[in-house]
C-alpha cells in the first residue's frame, strides 16, 4: 500500500480514494457513485494524462489536472 495521486497510477491498479476536491466537483463525484473511501479500478491511462476509472462497471473519465488533485492509496 502506498500513497499516490490518481494521476500517478497504472492501468489495472485498484485504488482507494482518499480525498476529493471540495465543492461542486465533489458532489459530481458522489452522483457518479464515487465517495471518499470507495475503491475504483484504473481502466485506462491515456497519453496526456486523462484517466478512465471504473466503479461498478460504470466508466468515468477524469481529466489529467483533476486526477493530479485526487489522493489515492494503491492496493
Amino acid at each position, binding site marked *: 500500500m502506498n500513497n499516490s495521486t490518481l494521476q500517478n497510477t497504472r492501468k489495472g491498479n485498484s485504488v482507494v480514494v482518499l480525498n476529493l476536491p471540495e465543492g461542486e*466537483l465533489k458532489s*459530481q*463525484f*458522489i452522483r*457518479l*457513485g464515487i*465517495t471518499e473511501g*470507495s475503491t475504483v479500478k484504473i*481502466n*485506462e491511462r*491515456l*497519453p*496526456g*494524462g*486523462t484517466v*478512465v476509472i471504473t*466503479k*461498478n*462497471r*460504470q*466508466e*468515468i*473519465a*477524469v*481529466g*489529467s*489536472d*483533476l486526477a493530479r488533485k485526487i489522493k489515492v492509496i494503491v492496493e
Partner: protein
Amino acid sequence: MKSDSVLNISGKNKVLNEVELNKVVTQKEKVVLVGNPNVGKSLFFNYLSGMYVDVSNFPGTTVSISKCNYKNYEIMDTPGIYGVSSFNDEETVARDVIIDADRILNVVNSLHLERDLFLTLQLIDMGKKVSVMLNFSDEVKKRNIKIDTKKLSELLGVEVYETSAVKETGFDKLDKAIENARQGKQELDVYFMLQQVMEKNISQSEAMLVLEGDSSTAEKNKVDNGTPDEREKIYIGRRNRVNEIVDQVEHEDSKKGELFNLLGRLSLNPLTGIPILAVVLVILYFFIGDLVSQRIVDFTEGTVGKGIFEYNLKSFVSDYTPADIDVNILNDEEEVIDTRTFNFPEGKSANPDLALQFKEYSSQPGAESDFSFSHPIAKLFFGEFGVVTMTTTYLIFLLLPLVLAFYLVMALLEDSGYLPRLATMLDRAFTRIGLNGRAVIPIMLGFGCVTMANITTRILGSNREKTIVTAILQFAIPCSAQLAVIAVLLSGAGVVPLLIFVTVIGSVLVALSTILNKILPGESSPLLIDLPVIQIPKMKNVFKKTSFRTIGFMKEAGFWFFVGAFGVGVMEITGLLTIWQDTLAPLVTGWLQLPKEAATAFVMGMVRRDFGAAGLFEIDLTVMQVTVAIITITLFVPCIASFVVMLKERGLKEGLSIWFGTWIVAFLIGGIVSQILI
C-alpha cells in the same frame, strides 16, 4: 364507499379514517403496483383486472390511479417513479398510495437493475411488505445477461419472481407473489435512525420519508424533517448498497457485449481512437457528402424542385404576366448545345402559338428554363429570389433531405455512447486551447445546428469555457444546412479546395481559442464525465429524435427563409440591392476578388448562414473563387436565430462583440486567402 378519495390530498386525515373503515368493512388488503417509468406495471394491472388500460410510453399516463378488485385484494396502479418523495405531482400521488399500501408488487426492469433497485431498497427501508417482479426476463436472456434471482432474493430478504409482462410469462405466480410479500432486510444504521423517529408514534414508512427530508410528511406528523445533507447521506448509502447487490447478482457474459466494450476501449486511446474517428468521418462523408448531398439532392432539387415544381409554377405565372424565358438545352456533360429565348410581353396566354412552341421546346430532355418577370410582384414571389419559388425549392428539395441526414447521423452518434469517449480522447488537445474534452459535444452539435449548440454550451463548467466555445461556434463551425450547401458547391471541385477550406477554418478555430484562453481571466474546469456503454442505438429512439429535430428545424428555418427571400426580393425591386452591392463592391471585388453579385450572399447570410451560401449558387464562380467565398461565408456572422440565442445566453456585450468580430475576421481571412489563391 368512495375509495378513490385516497387521492384527495387536502383532506388527508379524513381520508385515512375512511381508508381504515374501508378495510374493516370490506376486509380487503390493498396491493399496490410500484415501479420506475416504463417497466410494464400497467400490463400487470391489465392482467389482474381483466380490463384494458392504455399502456403508454409517456410518463404520467397513469397519474390518475386505476384500481380493481382481484380475489380478496384491491389492486392499485401507480405512476412510474424513481423514488418515493414529493419532487413532483406523480411522486406525491404515488407516495400517498404507497404509505397506505398493505402489500407492494414492485415491478423492476431487469435490464436496469442498478437504476430500479434504488426504489426497491427504499420500499424495503419503509418497512413495506414487498415482492419483486423481475420484468423483461426474456430480454435479459436474449442479451446473455445472467441474474441470480435466488441470491437477489436472499440479499433483499423478499421474494423475487421472473416475469415477461408482454408475453404474460410468470403471471401464474402472481397470486403467490402477493401472498408471500414480506418485509425485507434493512441496513442496521438506517434501522437505528428510523427507530428514533418511530418512537414519536410515526409509522416506519412515514419515518423513512421524514428522515429523507419529505417536508409534507414531516408536517403531517408534526416533526422536523431531515436536512438535504441527511437525505444525501441516506441516498449515498442506498446507492452503494444497490451497486453492491447488482455486482453480486448480475453477470454479463455476452460476446457481443465484449466486442462493444473493446470498441469502447479502443475509441478512448488516441492510437486507436484517431483511426476510429477517421473511419467514422469517412463513413459520414460517403453518407452525407456523396449519397445525400449529391445523388439524392441532385434528384430532389434538380429534377423535382427546379424541373417540375418551379418550371410548372413559373410557366403558369407567365401565362398572366410579362415574361422573358431563356431555354437552354444541355447534353449529358452539362454543356449547352442549343438555346432559345421566348418573349411574352403580355404574358403567355396572349400568344398561344408561341406558348405552345415554348412548351414543346422546353419539354425536351436536358432543357433548363430561366424565367424573368418584369412585374415587381411576380418578381418578388416567383423571380430569382422569389419568396414562393426559391424558398420552397431550397427548403423542401435541398435542405430537408440534408438536414434529415445530419440529424439522423447526430442521433446515431449520441445514442451509441461514442460522443463521451470522443470527448475523453480529445481531452488533452482541448486542454491546450483552454477547454476540456466535453467541449467536443457542443462543437459537434454545432455541425448540426449552431443555434442548438449555443444552448448546449451550458454543460460546460465555467464561464470562460462557455465564452470560448460560443465564439468558436459563431466563427468557425458551419451548421448542417450551410455544410450542405458548401458540400454541393464543392462537389466536383476536387480535394484541394476542401483541404484549403478545412485548414483555414481549423487554423482560425485554434488561433481564436488560444487567444481567448490567454485573454480571459480564470481557469477552465477539468474533465469529469461518465461513459455510457457502447451500444447499437435503439432505432425507434433515433427516428423519434431525428424527426423531432428536423421538424423543429424546418419550422424555424422556414420562417427565416421567407423573411430573407422577401427582404432580398424587396431590396432587388427597390434597387437597394444594387446600392448594397456597390457599397461592398470594393471589398468583394477588389479584396475578395469575387463577382459583385456575391455581396448579395452576405446580405442573405445575415439572416441564415445556409441561405448566404445558397446565394452563391446563382453566381458563376471559378473553383478558387468558390473556395474563398465559402471560407468567408463560413467565418461570417451566424444566422439570426443563433444571434438571438447567443445574446440570451452570453449577454449583450459579449454577443455583440462576437457578432462584429465575425465581420472583421471573415473579410480579413477571406481576403488573405483570396490574395494568395487568385
